[in-house]
């Protein structure tokens, strides 16, 4: 049995402005007296049966666009899709496949749409091919109007394969 030293907690203050949750006031006076180490954290339930991830409640990240710990509300559409790319900072591209009916031929054709969704830091290890549920929120950027609410690991290997939902 070996006891390993805990790695130093990486500083989350990497920006030029101090990152903090607006809803939380860390009273410097009380902190000095009680000597508490635990940071206060604010989080909320997004509703519609979605569970707030443990990482959102216990983590230390600050993300104002996170549906659980930030200032966005989920309302409108709830959609699902496959993760296509995770190269952006805190946002992902989702691919949604669907069938379009051509009446003349009585048949369907495959179509797809890409969707940009904000990915909160509480979802760790999201990879290309994972199935993801996103909820509509207010515009967060030029193309982002959705926020990731739930991630489930991919079963199949390919992501570009057609998967209907």
């Amino acid at each position, binding site marked *: 049995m070996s006891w390993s030293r805990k790695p130093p907690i990486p500083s989350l*203050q990497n*920006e*030029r*402005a*101090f990152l*903090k949750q607006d809803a939380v*006031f*860390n*009273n*410097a*006076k*009380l*902190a*000095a007296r009680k000597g508490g180490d635990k940071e206060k954290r604010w989080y909320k339930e997004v509703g519609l049966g979605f569970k707030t991830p443990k990482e959102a409640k216990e983590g230390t990240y600050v993300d104002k666009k996170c549906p659980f710990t930030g200032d966005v509300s989920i309302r409108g559409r709830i959609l699902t899709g496959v993760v296509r790319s995770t190269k952006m900072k805190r946002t992902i591209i989702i691919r949604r496949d669907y069938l379009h009916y051509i009446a003349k031929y009585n048949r369907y054709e495959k179509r797809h749409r890409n969707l*940009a969704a904000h990915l909160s830091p509480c979802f760790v290890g999201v990879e290309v091919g994972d199935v993801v549920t996103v909820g509509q929120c207010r515009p967060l950027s*030029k*193309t982002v109007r959705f926020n990731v609410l739930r991630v489930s690991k991919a079963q199949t290997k390919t992501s570009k394969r057609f998967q209907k939902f």
Partner: protein
Amino acid sequence: MGISRDSRHKRSHTGAQRPQYRKKRKFELGRQPAQTKLGQKSIHPIKTRGGNFKFRALRLDTGNFSWGSESVTRKTRIVDVVYNASNNELVRTQTLVKGAIIQIDAAPFRQWYERHYGLPLGKKGKKAQDASAAASEELSKKKSNHLQRKIDGRKKDAKIEQALDDQFGSGRLYARIASRPGQSGRCDGYILEGKELEFYVRKIRTKK
């Protein structure tokens, strides 16, 4: 004016150029930024959509600032713009914007503290004893028995953090602007404390 806030002039998500099919609309308008500076108060009211008004502060010198841990808010003079996370230019030109770190006059807060706790502020170590002899008028004022008992009851909560205490010594506190002077015409905010204060003091020091 010319400033519009539409997205029709921007390329779409796929990169396609969007054709212009209509002129600019009034509801998409944008206005010139206020660039509020330090100086004698000068505020212009602007009539906005719906008959409402916005108050564009062009020059401000005071604001309402709150001391969070003590739950006190006082109107104070703004002395200096010290740091801006977005743009150093705004510091150089002493522009008041939301989120800017400024220095405010500590006098009203010191007066409140001395009245509330009956203790001096901002005097270091040994000097504290000598200084309180030549104390401010608040401290040396004659207090009734009842008042003295109240003050003694508060004494154990009187300790404030060292970083803040030092600032009182120099007569200036670091604060952060929380209102939008170009929208509301006011420059209000809160005094920096704890981790936030530590963070910004470090940033200011490394810049110098």
